[in-house]
């Protein structure tokens, strides 16, 4: 019994010790945390050009965040290894926003006030990007959103650019493809209920109305849903011949699999959300064959810049890049191009980006930016043929690819 008692008392001591250590550990973190922030201030700024970057590298969307960061890092390393920009090395000041708007705001403040970056690329979703944009606008530091599509982002101000076309443009292009290429007669819609899905459906409906294409009332599903047999059974009975599916890879792959499971004879039409080999193609498997998507990455492109990017990414990270990575890469690519042409101060970069004309990037030829800095570039259309995205078409009609500026 005595042993047990001594052990008990010993255990109490251990408990106290652990708590003391934990508290001190937290205190120590506090101090080092502050010190490390101050630390990078002291680095010599002579030769490095700092570009800010934030993406959801942990948390629920870690896959997209990591893919965006990998592409940005790839381009920075490529540029630095080839001597940087007229002698100056590039530094990517990267932060993880965990897809949390509150953290995006403090990251934006830190980038603008403490880290002294000259430009920022957002590799995050619409939420954090919208929260950070006003801060960059106020600080007169140009920010380019890699793949966020919310229409409010470019409307924040003249220092904020949108690298992937707005949901309305992509939706309209999809309607055009459905009408011309897939000669759809009765289109069902199965869309994710968030800003991504809403803007795409809006664009699709507007264009379909112009083309006189019959479109059913949209069915909405939510982020994280995995069961689609109920709603697809409903679509099966609705006699639709094409189903427009604005969704992300996780939900999209389940929709495609259930379409096959239910023996639904329907042509699925997807969007850039599904443009990912690891997250979508591998999961959907052979059921994805025949799927047509509107996106901005043409993997079949004969353009050297596209081939180099796909090869370099696969060599460095072991798997194919996806649209999120390609768009973020282009965002940085446009910034670097602006620095080369126009100089490395925030204003020079802003003007350089705005002045970009017919610039061949990974996600197609960037014809330019409209009055509120939305990108104008053709919409790529890809089709899945035995497990690989293949060129299907390209929408270049200005009436469609020029985004609304109201």
């Amino acid at each position, binding site marked *: 019994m005595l042993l047990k008692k001594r052990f008990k008392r010993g255990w109490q001591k251990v408990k106290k010790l652990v708590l003391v250590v934990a508290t001190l550990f937290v205190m120590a973190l506090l101090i080092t945390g502050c010190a490390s922030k101050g630390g990078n201030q002291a680095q010599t700024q002579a030769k490095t050009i700092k570009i800010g970057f934030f993406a959801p590298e942990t948390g629920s969307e870690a896959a997209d965040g990591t893919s965006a960061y990998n592409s940005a890092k790839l381009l920075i390393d490529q540029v630095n290894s080839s001597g940087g920009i007229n002698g100056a090395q590039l530094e990517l000041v990267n932060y993880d926003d965990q897809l949390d708007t509150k953290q995006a705001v403090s990251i934006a403040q830190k980038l603008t006030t403490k880290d002294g970056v000259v430009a920022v690329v957002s590799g995050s979703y619409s939420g954090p990007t919208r929260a950070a944009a006003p801060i960059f606008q106020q600080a007169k530091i140009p920010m380019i959103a890699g793949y966020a599509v919310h229409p409010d982002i470019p409307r924040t101000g003249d220092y904020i650019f949108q690298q992937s076309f707005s949901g309305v443009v992509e939706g309209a292009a999809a309607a055009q493809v459905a009408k011309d290429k897939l000669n759809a007669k009765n289109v069902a819609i199965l869309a994710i209920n968030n800003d991504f899905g809403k803007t795409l459906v809006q664009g699709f409906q507007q264009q379909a109305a112009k083309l006189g294409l019959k479109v059913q009332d949209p*069915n909405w599903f939510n982020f994280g*849903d995995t069961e689609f*047999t109920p*709603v697809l*059974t409903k679509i099966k009975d609705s006699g639709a011949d094409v189903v427009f599916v604005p969704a992300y890879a*996780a939900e999209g792959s389940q929709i495609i699999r259930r379409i096959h499971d239910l023996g639904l004879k329907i042509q699925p039409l997807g969007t850039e959300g599904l443009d990912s080999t690891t997250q979508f193609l591998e999961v959907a*498997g052979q059921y994805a064959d025949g799927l047509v998507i509107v996106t901005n990455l043409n993997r079949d492109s004969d353009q050297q810049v596209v081939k180099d990017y796909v090869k370099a990414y696969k060599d460095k990270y072991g798997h194919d890049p996806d649209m999120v990575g390609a768009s973020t890469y282009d965002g940085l690519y446009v910034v670097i191009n602006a620095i080369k042409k126009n100089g490395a101060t925030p204003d020079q970069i802003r003007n350089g980006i705005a002045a970009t004309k017919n610039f061949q990037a990974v996600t197609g030829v960037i014809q330019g930016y409209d009055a509120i800095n939305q990108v104008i570039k053709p919409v790529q259309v890809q089709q899945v043929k035995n497990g690989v995205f293949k060129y299907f078409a390209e929408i270049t009609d200005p009436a469609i690819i020029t985004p609304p500026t109201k």
Partner: protein
Amino acid sequence: MFLQQLVNGITIGSLYSLVALGLTMVYGIMRVLDIANAGAYVLGAYLGVWGYTHTHSLPVALLAGVIGAALVGYLFQRLIYTPVNRPDDPIVPLIASIGLFIVMEDLFRLIAGPWTLTFPARLPFQRLALGGVIVTGSQLTILATAAVLFLLLWLVLNKTKIGLGWQATAQDTETSMAMGINTRAVLAFAFGMGYAFSAIAGILVAVHHNAVFPTMGDIPSYKMLAIVVLGGLGNPLGAILASMLIGLLEAFVGGYVGSSIPTDALAFMALIVILLVRPQGLFTSGGAAK
């Protein structure tokens, strides 16, 4: 259409019931709402995929998932839940389980990477089409496995010593201790079995969706709470029936109304309405309410 939705509903319900049973095994004994149980769901999927890639056999994958999860369940019970469990302060074990769930999820991301792994297992059953109603291979597997597991659980709970020990301890821990039931063994059994059930559900879902990713446990972890409470906490039969109810509800709401209400909000709405009418849940399991 109605029959197809019925099949869809029951399949969804069967999947929910496996995780719900996992939770019930744990709650029945310790009155702890173990959110980390959904961690076992994801752990099962990862072990399953790991097992499958090496052996290409589904049974081995299932075994790997079950053993791994049961072991983790036992460790959690011994190291965290038993010392932390305070009947008069239920928030403490609940927060501990939330912490464990966060740790597990991030560990999966760190170890297996944030990307989605595929689980291309060939299923024992092929697609069935009976008169317009389509039952896919994976749906059949889920239904079959769930049926087998319900039977197995019924047998274990009613026919084995440890199973009866569980039932006794679930009703009254002090009296069962007094009557010589080795509650430590029953605790280990409850957590082991509970986590194993969730692991099997995880593997079945992974095969059904051909996808394993670190955050696949998010939705189930909280939806199951609604289901388990709906079924009357600690009552295995109640958990199964409640799972079927929610599965059918989702199938018919999803199919007919085409609503955009998130499914977990749907489950919670059903729960709140029912709790207001019957504070002890649908299938009472004793004086849980005032």
